[in-house]
C-alpha cells in the first residue's frame, strides 16, 4: 500500500512538471503574438525559440531533478517505511504480547475474582436459602398451628351448633310426634266415642221401641214438636 502511494506521488509530480512546461510554451507564444519583434522577426523568433528551449530544457531538467529527487525520496520513504513497519510490527507484537499478558493476567484475576465472588454468592445464596427455608418453615409451622387451632375451634363450634340443631330438631320432632300421637289418640277416642254413641243409640232404639208405651211415645212426639217449635224449626 505504501508503494502504491509513492508511485501515485511520482506520477503527480511528473504531471505537474509537464503542465509547467506546457504553460511556459503557451506564455512564450503569447508573448510572440503580442509583442512585435523589436529588430527582426527571425532574430526574435530565434531568441524566443532559444529562450523557450532553454526554459523547456530547464524545466525538463528541473523535472528530471524533481523526479529523481522524488524517486529518491520515495525510495527513502519506502525504505524508512519498511524499517518502520518492521519496528511497528515488532512493537505491535510486543505490545500485543504485553497486552495479551496483561489481558491474561487480568482475565485470570477476573476469573479468580469471579470464581471467588461466585462462590461467595453461592454461599450467601445457600445461606439465604437456608435462612429463608428456616423462616418459611417457622412461618408455615406458625400458620399451620394457627390454622389447626382455628380449625379445631371452628370444628368444636360447628359440632356444638350441629349438636344444638340436632337437639332442637329432635325435640321439635318429638313434640310433633307427641302432638300427632295426641291428635291420633283424640281422633281414635272420638271414633270410639262415636261408635259408643251409635251403639248407645241402637240399644236405646231397641229398648225404647220395646219398652215405651204408646202414650209415652206420643208424649215424646209432642215434646219433640214443642222443642222444634222453640227452635223455630217450622218458621223456615
Amino acid at each position, binding site marked *: 500500500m505504501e508503494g502504491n502511494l509513492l508511485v501515485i506521488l511520482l506520477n503527480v509530480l511528473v504531471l505537474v512538471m509537464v503542465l509547467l512546461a506546457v504553460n511556459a510554451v503557451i506564455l512564450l507564444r503569447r508573448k510572440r503574438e503580442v509583442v512585435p519583434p523589436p529588430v527582426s522577426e527571425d532574430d526574435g523568433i530565434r531568441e524566443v525559440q532559444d529562450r523557450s528551449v532553454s526554459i523547456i530544457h530547464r524545466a525538463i531538467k528541473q523535472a528530471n531533478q524533481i523526479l529523481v529527487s522524488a524517486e529518491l525520496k520515495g525510495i527513502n520513504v519506502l525504505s524508512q517505511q519498511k524499517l518502520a513497519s518492521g519496528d511497528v510490527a515488532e512493537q505491535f507484537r510486543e505490545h500485543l504480547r504485553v497486552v495479551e499478558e496483561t489481558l491474561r493476567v487480568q482475565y485470570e484475576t477476573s476469573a479468580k475474582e469471579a470464581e471467588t465472588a461466585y462462590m461467595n454468592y453461592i454461599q450467601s445464596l445457600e445461606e439465604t436459602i437456608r435462612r429463608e427455608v428456616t423462616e418459611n418453615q417457622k412461618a408455615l409451622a406458625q400458620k399451620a398451628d394457627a390454622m389447626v387451632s382455628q380449625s379445631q375451634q371452628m370444628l368444636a363450634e360447628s359440632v356444638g351448633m350441629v349438636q344444638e340443631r340436632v337437639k332442637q330438631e329432635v325435640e321439635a320432632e318429638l313434640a310433633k310426634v307427641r302432638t300427632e300421637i295426641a291428635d291420633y289418640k283424640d281422633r281414635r277416642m*272420638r271414633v270410639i266415642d262415636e261408635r259408643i254413641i251409635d251403639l248407645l243409640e241402637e240399644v236405646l232404639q231397641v229398648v225404647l221401641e220395646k219398652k215405651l208405651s204408646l202414650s209415652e211415645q206420643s208424649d215424646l*212426639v209432642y215434646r219433640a214438636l214443642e222443642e222444634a217449635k222453640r227452635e223455630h224449626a217450622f218458621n223456615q
Partner: protein
Amino acid sequence: MTADTLITIILAHAFTKAEVHRHLWRIRTYLEQRWFGSGTSGTLEEFYSHEGASDRERAVATALMSEIGGLSKETVYPVLEGAEESVKALPYLSISIPYPSDDAAVVGIGTWFRNNVHDRIVIDMTTDPSVVGGCAVAYRGYRHDLALHRAITKNKEKIRLLLHDYAGKTSG
C-alpha cells in the same frame, strides 16, 4: 156454598190430605148418585154411614147438611173443582211417628200443627219405627229429625264427657 166454605167445613174435622180428598170424593159421589143415579133419597150423613165413615168424618157430613142443599147440577162442579184447587194450595206437612197412627193421633197431632204452625195446614202421617223417641217432620222442603237420633246428636258432647268420666272412674 163456595169452594172456600166447603174447604173450611172439611178442614174443621179433617187433618190429612187423604181425608180432605176423601170428603170431596164422597160429596161428589153422593150428589152424582142422587142426581144421576138410581135416585137414592138418603141424606149425606146416611151416605157417610153407608160408606163406613168414622164419627169424625160423619161430623163433616153433618156440618154440610145445611149447605149442600144449595148446590145444583150446574154449580156443584165449579165448587168441587175450586175446592180441589184450594186443597193444592193449602200448606202441607209430612210427619213420621214411631207407632201406628190412629184417629186420636191424627187429630192430636193435626190440631197441634193447626194451633202452632198454620190454622189450615194439612198433614200426611206415616209410621217409621226408626224415629223412636220422637218423630220426623218434612215441611217446606226441609226434613227435621226430632227423634232419639237428634237428641243424642244434640247431646253428644255431654254423653262423651259422661263416658269419659265413667271410664276415668272405672279405670282409676
